[in-house]
C-alpha cells in the first residue's frame, strides 16, 4: 500500500508541475492570442479593448490565479476562438474522437497481435514474409496519402462511403442516424486500422520470436505441456506487460485526436481543435486540453502499474514498480 501511495503522491506532483508549466509555457511562446483576431484596420485602442475583454491586460499573477481556479474547478473558462465554455467545446468533440480512435486502436492491436503471433509461429514461411512486408508498409506509409487514396477509391470512383463528416446532410432521424454515423466512421476507421496494425504486428512478432527462444519456454516444452499452453500461457504471457504498457499509454492519444484523419475526412474531433487552439494561442482551450491530456496520461500510467501487478507475479512479490 505504501509504494502505491508514494506513486500517487508522485502523480500529484507531476500534475502540479503540468498545471504551472501549462500556464507559463503558453505565455512565453512567441505570438499572442489577439494576432489571429485583429485585422490591420484595428486601431491600437481597439486592440487594447480586445485585450481587456479577455483579461490579458491584468497582471500575470492575477491571470495565474484565475487560471488555477478555472482548472481546479474543471470549468476551464471560455475559449477565445469560439467564445463558448471550453468544457462544452471538448464535450462536443471527444465522443467523435473516441468513437473513431478507440475501436481503431483496439482493432489495430487485435489484428497486429494476431498477425504478429502468426508470423512468429511460422518463421521462414511465406506468410511471415507477407506479414513483415505488410507491417512495414502499414507502418511507413504517410497517413494523408493512404487516406486520400481511400477517399478517392471508395468515396469518389466507387462511392460506397461518404466523402466527409460524421453525418449525412440533412441528417437522418432515429435508428437510421446511428447507422449513418457508423457508415461515416467506416472509412476513417478502416484507414486507421490499416495504418496502425503494422507497428503492432512487427512488435509482437519480434517479442514472440525472442520469447519463444527463452529458457522458460524451452522448459515448458520439455515438461511436455501442450503447444497451445506453451504459446499462450508462457510465451505470450511473458510479453504481455510491455504490450499492456504500450496499449495503455496509447489511450491518451485516443482522446487527443488524429489531426490528419480529422482533416482529410472533415471530422469534428479534438485533434484539430487542440492544434488550432495551440496555434492561435487560445490560452483557456489549449490549457484545458493539455491539462486533461496530462491527467489522462498520468492516470493511464498508474493503470499500467496496476496491470503490471496483475499480470506479472514478480512485481506482485517485489511491490509496485518504481
Amino acid at each position, binding site marked *: 500500500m505504501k509504494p502505491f501511495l508514494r506513486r500517487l503522491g508522485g502523480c500529484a506532483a507531476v500534475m502540479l508541475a503540468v498545471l504551472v508549466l501549462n500556464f507559463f509555457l503558453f505565455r512565453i511562446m512567441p505570438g499572442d492570442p489577439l494576432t489571429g483576431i485583429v485585422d490591420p484596420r484595428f486601431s491600437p485602442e481597439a486592440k487594447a479593448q480586445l485585450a481587456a475583454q479577455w483579461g490579458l491586460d491584468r497582471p500575470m499573477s492575477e491571470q495565474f490565479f484565475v487560471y488555477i481556479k478555472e482548472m481546479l474547478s474543471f470549468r476551464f473558462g471560455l475559449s477565445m476562438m469560439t467564445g463558448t465554455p471550453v468544457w462544452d467545446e471538448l464535450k462536443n468533440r471527444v465522443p467523435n474522437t473516441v468513437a473513431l480512435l478507440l475501436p481503431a486502436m483496439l482493432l489495430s492491436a487485435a489484428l497486429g497481435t494476431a498477425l504478429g503471433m502468426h508470423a512468429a509461429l511460422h518463421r521462414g514461411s511465406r506468410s511471415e514474409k507477407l506479414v513483415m512486408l505488410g507491417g512495414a508498409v502499414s507502418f511507413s506509409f504517410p497517413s494523408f496519402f493512404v487516406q486520400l487514396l481511400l*477517399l478517392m477509391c471508395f468515396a469518389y470512383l466507387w462511392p460506397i462511403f461518404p466523402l466527409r463528416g460524421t453525418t449525412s446532410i440533412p441528417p437522418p432521424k432515429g435508428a437510421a442516424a446511428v447507422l449513418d454515423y457508423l457508415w461515416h466512421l467506416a472509412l476513417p476507421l478502416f484507414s486507421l486500422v490499416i495504418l496502425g496494425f503494422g507497428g503492432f504486428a512487427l512488435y509482437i512478432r519480434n517479442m514472440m520470436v525472442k520469447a519463444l527462444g527463452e529458457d522458460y519456454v524451452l522448459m515448458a516444452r520439455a515438461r511436455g505441456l501442450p503447444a497451445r499452453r506453451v504459446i499462450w500461457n508462457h510465451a505470450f504471457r511473458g510479453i504481455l506487460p510491455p504490450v499492456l504498457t504500450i496499449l495503455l499509454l496509447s489511450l491518451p492519444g485516443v482522446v487527443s485526436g488524429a489531426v490528419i484523419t480529422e482533416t482529410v475526412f472533415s471530422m469534428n474531433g479534438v485533434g484539430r481543435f487542440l492544434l488550432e487552439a495551440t496555434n492561435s494561442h487560445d490560452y483557456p482551450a489549449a490549457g484545458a486540453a493539455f491539462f486533461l491530456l496530462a491527467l489522462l496520461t498520468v492516470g493511464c500510467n498508474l493503470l499500467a502499474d496496476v496491470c503490471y501487478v496483475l499480470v506479472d507475479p514478480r512485481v506482485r512479490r517485489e511491490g509496485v514498480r518504481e
Partner: protein
Amino acid sequence: MGLMKKFIRILCAFSAISASCGVSAAAGGSFDIMSFSGPKARDLYYVITRDMDAALLSMSSGKIDVLSDIYRPVDVERLEASGSVNLSVASSYHGFFVTFNLRRFPWDQKELRQAAAMVIDRRRWVRDLFAGYCEPLLSFLPPVSNYSTRGGLPRFDAEEAKKLLSGAGWTWNRSGWLVAPDGRELPNTRILCPPSSVAATSTEIAELAAEAFRSIGIPAEAEPMDFQTLLSKVDIGDFDACTNAWSMSLDPDVLYSFYHSSMNVEGGSNQSGIGDPELDKALFDLRYAPDERSARDASERAQALLAELMPVIPIYSRYSISAASKAWDGIFSTDTSTSDNLLTLISMTPSDGSERPIYWNIPEEIRTLNPLVSSTAYDWTVLGTIYDTPLSTDPYTKEDIPWLAETWSITREGSGTALAFTFRKGLKWQDGYPLSAHDFAYTLQFIKDNLVPRFYDNVKDIDKIEVSPDGLTVKVYMKNTSYWHLHNIGGMIILPKHIMENVPDWRTWQPSNRPRTAADGTELTELIGTGPFVFRESRTGEYVHMTRSEHYFLNREAGQ
C-alpha cells in the same frame, strides 16, 4: 505558355458565366438591386469540408454546389477538366509585400530601398511560382480597389538600380558588397519568412528577394522561422526585412493604418516604422477627407509618396477563384466579384427545375455565430446571409449602392459630419417583427457604449444619433469630418433592438443556442437578422442549416 493558355480559357469561361447568368444587371452602368428577386432555393447548407482535395472530389461528384478559395493551379485545372463546374476569377483584396524595417541601418536609407525595389522582377516571379494564377501587385492597395494607382512603382532594371545608388554616393567594396556614403559596410539583411512547410511560396519569394538584393551588392538571405515567432519579432521591430501578406479593403484609408507614424506604436500596424511628415500629411488628409474627390486626391498623393519612400515592396496579389456547379442557374459573377457572393445565393435555381438544397462549402469550422465577437471570414460567410447593412457595394463598379437604406446623404455639420440613412418601407426581421431606424440607432449606441472591439473603430467618433419621428431615417452625427464615415457606419450590420435588449452579456452571447419564437409562432433562435436566409441549426464541424426568409426584402414571391 500552355498554362497561360489554360488560364485564358478560364477567363473566357468566367466571362461566359457572367454573360449567361440571366440576372438583370447593367455592366458598368447603374446596378439595380431591385432587379433581383429571391432567395429561390428553400434550404441552404453550409457544408464544412476541411481538406481541399476532399472538397474538390465533392465538387466534382456534385455533393457541393459552390466552392471558394481555390488557389492551387492544379485544382483550377482539375475543376476545369471535370466539365461540371463553372469557374469565376476576380481580382482580390490580397496583397503580398516585402517589408523593410526603417528603424535600422541600412533600410533607413531611402535610396537603398528604391534600388531594392528596382531589382524585384515580380512579373517573372508570378509566372514562375504561380503559373499565372496571381497578378503582379503594382500598387500599395489591392487591385480590386478603385483607388489603386497601378503603375507608380519603379520598373525592373538592375542597372538603373546600381546607377541610382552610385549617384547617391554608394560604393562597392572589393568583395562587391555595398558601402554606404558615410563609409559604413552593410550588415547581412535577414528576410524573415514562414517556413516552406507552412507557406512554400512565401519562403521562395524571400529567397528570390535575397538573391535579387545580392545582385546589386546588398548582403541578404532568407530566414524561415515559425510564423508566430516571425509576427512577434515584427511586432517589436526586431527584424531587418520580412515577407507579409494582408487582406485589405476597398477603401484606401487602410494606408493610414500601415504607414502613418501614429501607428508606429505597440499594437499598431505600421510594421516598417515609417514616419515621414509629408506622407503623414497625405495620410491624414486621406483619413479625414471631407468628400470623395479630396479622398481620391489624398490617396493618389499618399501612393505616389509611398512609391518614392518604398517602406515595403508590393509583390503580388492572389486572384479570387471560385467554382459553381453547372447544375444551377442564376450564378452571378463580375470581373471584381467571384460567384461565391450573396447575389448568387439569392438567384440560384436548379437548372432542371427541381427543388433541392444549396450545398455551399466552407473550409473551416464555424467558430462562433455571435456577430459581436466573431472574427473569421468563414463565420462571416454564414453571418453575412443573416445580417444586412444599410449600404452595399456595386459588384461591377465597387461604388456604394442602396441596400436596406433606400437613400443616404453625407453633409458637413460644423467641424463634424452628419450621415443620414432612410430605410426602405416595410422591412421586417426574420422573426416577422418590423425593422425601423430605431434598430440601427440602437445597434450603433450599443456598440459604442459597450466598446465592442470588433466595431469600435467604426463608431468611436459618433457624437449623437437621432431618429426621425416616422422611424424611417436615422441621422448619425460624427465628431470629425471624414468621407470614410459613410462606409464605416453604412457598412455596419443592424441588430434587432427587441432581441439585443434582453442579451445578458454580449461577450458570451450565443444567439444560435438561445430559442426564440417568431411573430407567427415559428420556433427560431436569437440569431435573427434581415438577410435572405434564416438560421435553423448548426452542428459543430459538420454544417449550418438555413432556410429562406419569407420576410427578406427581395423575396417578392412571399409578398415583400
